[in-house]
């Protein structure tokens, strides 16, 4: 019932938007008009209650609105090995839904068997990355640009864009799907990227046990609640300055820090991109949602388990010149959490994982 009602509202909004559009174009013949007046069906993001309540509106570029047809095309492309040089690898080879769109490797292999040097990042809630810097080192400025990279990256799908576009163009199904999504049968890499970005923006995770607890729809164990207190306690976890809090439900600040992993920086991270040595060893704070599915951890996947991550913050910190001031008591390796504090902190972290996200039927392979 609710669904149908919502559907009706969308049609209403659509009709209204259409009315505005047509009135505009009649007054303004210079305005951009879709081929044959075709308008794909708008599909607003399904925003979780907790985001509605506390976060700004999601970032959707004006020139790439979310549509039913665009998302469906993007999903098909995301799971399609046709995009890779030898037809063996899709985005989903490394970004698997059951692992919150990561794989279980420390480093993934590209089609030529070359192993990368960064751990796969999960894909969710990217429309709320207000900082709009993607990858561990922030090198991509928006999702549409990001989606162009893996296809040609020699250690990933190692294709060329003219080749990928030609394969899609000569496919039996794709030209029609591009027509439905964008009003043209002509495949371009920009449209491929737009469709994939639309699909990626629908990958939203905001209904974990901890969210339900905040909304008054579920309960947590005493251990999980205690773990949250440790997370928020400046003298113990002090995790909240970089990884969010109950009112900042992305569980990342989307900013770059050096969290004390190495004395000698080998992967410069953000420093490679800005060329500023003061940025050496800085990486984007990852979200702490869905950690149950995203091992191993850190930009280089050095930690197999959450226990190792917590031990790092508790007693494994090492000094390097760009280390973040929030990393404390470095001479002792950290604040030395008690074993029970560590166990509680871990229990809390896991309460941010959402089984319904990894099992969402809309996010699985459609091919």
């Amino acid at each position, binding site marked *: 019932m609710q669904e149908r009602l919502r559907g009706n509202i969308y049609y209403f909004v659509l009709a209204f938007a259409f009315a505005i559009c047509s009135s505009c174009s009649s007054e303004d013949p210079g305005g951009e008009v879709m081929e044959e007046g075709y308008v794909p069906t708008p599909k607003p993001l399904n925003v979780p209650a907790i985001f509605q309540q506390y976060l700004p509106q999601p970032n959707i570029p004006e020139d790439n609105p979310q549509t039913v047809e665009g998302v469906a095309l993007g999903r098909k492309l995301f799971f399609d090995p046709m995009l890779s040089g030898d037809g063996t690898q899709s985005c989903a080879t490394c970004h698997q839904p059951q692992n919150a769109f990561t794989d279980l490797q420390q480093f993934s292999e590209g089609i030529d068997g070359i192993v990368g040097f960064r751990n796969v990042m999960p894909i969710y809630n990217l429309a709320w990355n207000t900082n709009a810097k993607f990858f561990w080192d922030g090198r991509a400025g928006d999702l549409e640009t990001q989606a162009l990279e893996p296809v040609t990256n020699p250690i990933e799908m190692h294709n060329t864009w003219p080749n990928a576009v030609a394969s899609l163009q000569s496919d039996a199904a794709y030209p029609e799907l591009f027509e439905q999504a964008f009003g043209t049968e002509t495949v371009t890499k920009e449209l491929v990227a737009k469709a994939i970005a639309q699909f990626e923006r629908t990958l939203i995770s905001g209904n974990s046990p901890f969210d339900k607890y905040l909304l008054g729809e579920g309960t947590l164990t005493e251990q999980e609640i205690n773990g949250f207190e440790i997370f928020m306690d*400046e003298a113990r976890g002090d995790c909240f300055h970089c990884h969010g809090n109950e009112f900042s439900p992305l569980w990342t*600040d989307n900013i770059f820090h050096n969290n004390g992993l190495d004395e000698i920086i080998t992967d410069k991270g953000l420093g490679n991109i800005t060329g500023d040595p003061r940025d050496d060893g800085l990486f984007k704070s990852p979200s702490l949602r869905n950690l149950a599915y995203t091992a191993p951890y850190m930009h280089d996947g050095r930690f197999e388990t959450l226990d190792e991550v917590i031990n790092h913050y508790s007693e494994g910190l090492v000094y390097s010149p760009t280390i973040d001031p929030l990393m404390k008591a470095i001479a002792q390796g950290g604040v030395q959490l008690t074993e029970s504090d560590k166990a509680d902190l871990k229990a809390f972290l896991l309460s941010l994982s959402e089984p319904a996200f990894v099992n969402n039927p809309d996010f699985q392979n459609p091919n």
Partner: protein
Amino acid sequence: MKKIGLLVMFAVFAIGCNSDDDSSAEILGCMDPDSINFNPEANTDDGSCSYLKNVTFNFTQNWGGEDRPVTKIDFNSTTYENEMGTTLTLSKLRYLISKIQLHKSDTTITIENYQLVDLAMDSSLSLAPTQQIPTGDYTGISFVYGFNEEDNISGNYPDLNDASWNWPAMLGGGYHFMQMEGSYNDENGMPQPYAYHNGRARLSMDNFVNNHLEFDFQRNFTVTDDTTIEIRMDISEWYKNPNMWDLNQYNVDLMMNYDAQILMHENGASVFSIGEINQ
């Protein structure tokens, strides 16, 4: 042909006016329809016309009143010496200003926006509200550092939530007022971290002091055109006046330290001033 028409109209108009003048008294007021206080009844302009102009607030930072501003370029490189003689660098400086008010002799204009100033983000260094201000004489500027008790509501501001600007519930909740971070050299010359974070102070369980600061500066200025107003922070004052700040004693874990929070509050009183006002 046109000219004659105009002439006739003018004649009629002139006659009309004359006959009017005889029967009614002089009415003073603003006679410009483009003003915000246009008086259609007025027949004598008294120079009171007022107009709406844009206002921009520029937030600048300095060390010890020096002309050279402190910017993100200085982060992790420029060293400063605080009143105690401790050498330090900055790596982050963010602070919140709210409830900016411009005072005239008879009215007060309240700017609706608050501003999270973040030295790492150039766009945050100035606030240009859509709200405009009337021309005329002003007597002063006031604002709140942080949020006052009434505004300091946990989770209330999506953009500040997104910036992880929240202050933990166990410390009274609401939002940070300032995050100033960096590194100082301890007695052995070794770099140590500091996190000078200010917000609500926790005296005991369920007993909190809001800890914001209200500034009220007397300053006479006249707005005739679009105006920029500089709000200055002298960072060295956080370490100086009236309490000499010892980073060897107070460096990290200051949020839950009641004494440190109150010392910050006291030192904050001399940190801000109004700089240049330009049109």
